[in-house]
């Protein structure tokens, strides 16, 4: 069965065409600057050849039409006709409390998803545009929604509630939801597969360290806590986001700098985090380069970043009642050996013996990073959210498709 995986942002459309039986990736690409000047489509073929198609892409519908057009084109395509696409899986950001798992897209699903728009006013409408465009282009093909929040819906109430007046939870659904669910789930499952253990019997901490960073505590195969909250600002320090912070700071700064709500949001989302501390960049590689040259703020920023992760590892180990497996993923987690090493330093007391030699130089590979004697296993696993989306889509659609490919 061939599944088209779509991830629609407000001005971008990411896609992958995956065959679910063979895990073959036929093609992938991205349409950028949708509805803006200078829009283009970057397409990558199975053999690694890249094509850039430039021209006006007025909206998501046009963008998706071009994606389909490229996929069936003689010159750059990989399909004979559109009928070779058997299902479409969408990455959807915020499923609120309504979506505990992935869901076949029906009129009712769309109605429920629309009700979640206030929780993610930037992301959800863009996701929806992708769904509607696809329904228009390929009305016969089943579509599935896979939510970034769904995996964390197993959190117990004492972990997801904020100590705010309860009425605000009732009124607006204000609580912790968490994100990157598909990624946390994938790397945990994949690591267990490699280790030959059952995910249901493991106490796992996953660290998704990319431009957005979050951690999850997984027990008996279920997420029991995660570091992001109602929005992605909570938790770890990120490229440009604060992560956890005393709320009093916010009201204090708002008063001192006379900030309104939208500016305050920009402050904590775009001016803070590693960029705000170091004044250099939100890019970890640039910060590390500066740190090596002795830049004190770069060093401070990296120390803060790693310390916060370490603190969460401690907290989640306590929450899980012990730890069996620690996993690093995301751009930084997959490619930054130093961060992995420092986050795992001096943890022998809890049975975690990190192997710096194995770790050194490991980038973008699946690898066990702990010593053989270590009771707690440490791994790095490149994430693959698209594969999970394709699998979920397959599972949900299988019951419906009369003749699966």
């Amino acid at each position, binding site marked *: 069965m061939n599944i088209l995986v779509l991830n629609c942002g407000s001005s971008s459309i990411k896609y992958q065409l995956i065959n679910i039986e063979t895990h073959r990736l036929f093609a992938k690409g991205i349409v950028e600057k949708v509805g803006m000047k200078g829009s283009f489509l970057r397409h990558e073929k199975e053999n690694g050849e890249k094509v850039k*198609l430039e021209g006006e892409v007025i909206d998501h519908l046009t963008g998706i039409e071009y994606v389909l057009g490229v996929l069936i084109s003689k010159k750059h395509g990989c399909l004979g006709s559109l009928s070779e696409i058997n299902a479409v899986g969408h990455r959807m950001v915020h499923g609120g409390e309504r979506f505990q798992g992935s869901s076949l897209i029906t009129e009712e699903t769309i109605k429920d998803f629309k009700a979640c728009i206030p929780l993610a006013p930037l992301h959800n409408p863009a996701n929806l545009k992708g769904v509607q465009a696809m329904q228009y282009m390929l009305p016969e093909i089943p579509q599935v929604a896979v939510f970034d929040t769904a995996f964390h819906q197993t959190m117990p109430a004492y972990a997801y509630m904020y100590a705010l007046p309860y009425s605000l939870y009732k009124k607006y659904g204000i609580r912790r939801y968490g994100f990157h669910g598909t990624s946390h789930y994938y790397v945990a499952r994949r690591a267990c597969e490699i280790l030959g253990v059952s995910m249901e019997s493991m106490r796992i901490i996953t660290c998704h360290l990319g431009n957005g960073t979050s951690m999850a505590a997984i027990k008996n195969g279920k997420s029991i806590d995660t570091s992001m909250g109602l929005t992605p600002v909570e938790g770890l320090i990120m490229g440009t986001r604060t992560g956890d912070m005393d709320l009093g700071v916010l009201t204090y700064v708002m008063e001192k*700098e006379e900030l309104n709500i939208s500016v305050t949001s920009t402050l904590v989302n775009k001016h803070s985090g590693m960029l705000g501390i170091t004044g250099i960049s939100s890019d970890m590689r640039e910060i590390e380069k500066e740190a090596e040259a002795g830049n004190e703020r770069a060093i401070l920023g990296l120390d803060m970043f790693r310390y916060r992760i370490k603190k969460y590892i401690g907290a989640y180990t306590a929450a899980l009642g012990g730890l069996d497996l620690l996993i690093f993923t995301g751009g930084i987690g997959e490619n930054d050996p130093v961060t992995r090493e420092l986050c795992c330093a001096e943890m022998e007391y809890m049975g975690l013996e990190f192997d710096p030699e194995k770790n050194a130089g490991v980038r973008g590979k699946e690898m066990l990073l702990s010593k053989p004697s270590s009771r707690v296993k440490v791994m790095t696993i490149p994430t693959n959210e698209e594969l999970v989306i394709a699998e979920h889509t397959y599972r949900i659609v299988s019951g419906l498709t009369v003749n699966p490919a």
Partner: protein
Amino acid sequence: MAEMIVEPIENYGLSKESRPKILFSKIGIVGCGSVGQDLAITAAKHGIEVVFLERNEELIQRSFKEIKRELDHEINHWGLTPGEKTAILSMIRGTLVYTDFHDCELVIETIKMKHGQSGHEMRREVFLNIEKAVRKECIIATNSSTIAVTELSSELKHKERCVSLHISTTAPGASVVELAKGLHTSDEAYEKVIKFVKLIEKIAIPVTESPGLVSVRLFVVLLNEACATLMEGVSSMENIDLTMRCSFNMPLGPFEFADKVGLDKIVRWMKNLYSEFGTSRYIASPMIKKLVRANRLGRITGIGFYKYDDEGNKILEETL
């Protein structure tokens, strides 16, 4: 790494029917003073390309300097990132010739009158020049609130595409735009402009063509009354402003607003309103006229009702 193949995307569309163009991918602005700059920044922030026309190279440079200053101000107050500033600036271009408007979908005149100049004549000429340069579907708009678009468009071939689009710049980030149809304005053109206003995330307020529309008409009367209150010695200027700011949750009091707008502009507004309505409430207070005669026009000249430093910040104490 192998070189990437680059091709036009149009060959890969599935349906052969002609594709709609992106609406308002480029707009033109005639006269890039504070209103024009504000509009240029707002449009560029929303991914719209902007070309603005000024009388000479020096004025173009000045506009850019002021736009950059405004963006830096936003960065310093956490409202914008340096990356976003670069992106915004890359969308804005200055020009000396009308022909650069040829591919715009909307051209707005936001010209600033010098003291004593007649707005009607100059704006009418601007409208004629715009029409010569643009396609016939291009919307032509005026930012003037006291001069009727019907009058400005009267000599054009395609009068139906002209509207009055008044952006209030007295409050930073003001979210409303007053939209008035002229006598000839077509529904199609009007609908299109409403789309533009939505695109830049502002609220369109439909108004009937009437001098002063809503905002200007109400403001000038408030200012006149504030002057009378001051002249009668009811309260001090600072306290009148403070009372209005706090009582009505205004970001600036009437005197502060007036200084920001420019007192010469206010006198012109009131003249236009008076010539239309003929009621004395639109006759500018002697206090405003006195200041204008002394070239105390507000922030622009560093002194109006209040005194200002080079950055445009109010200097306390030394006032009228």
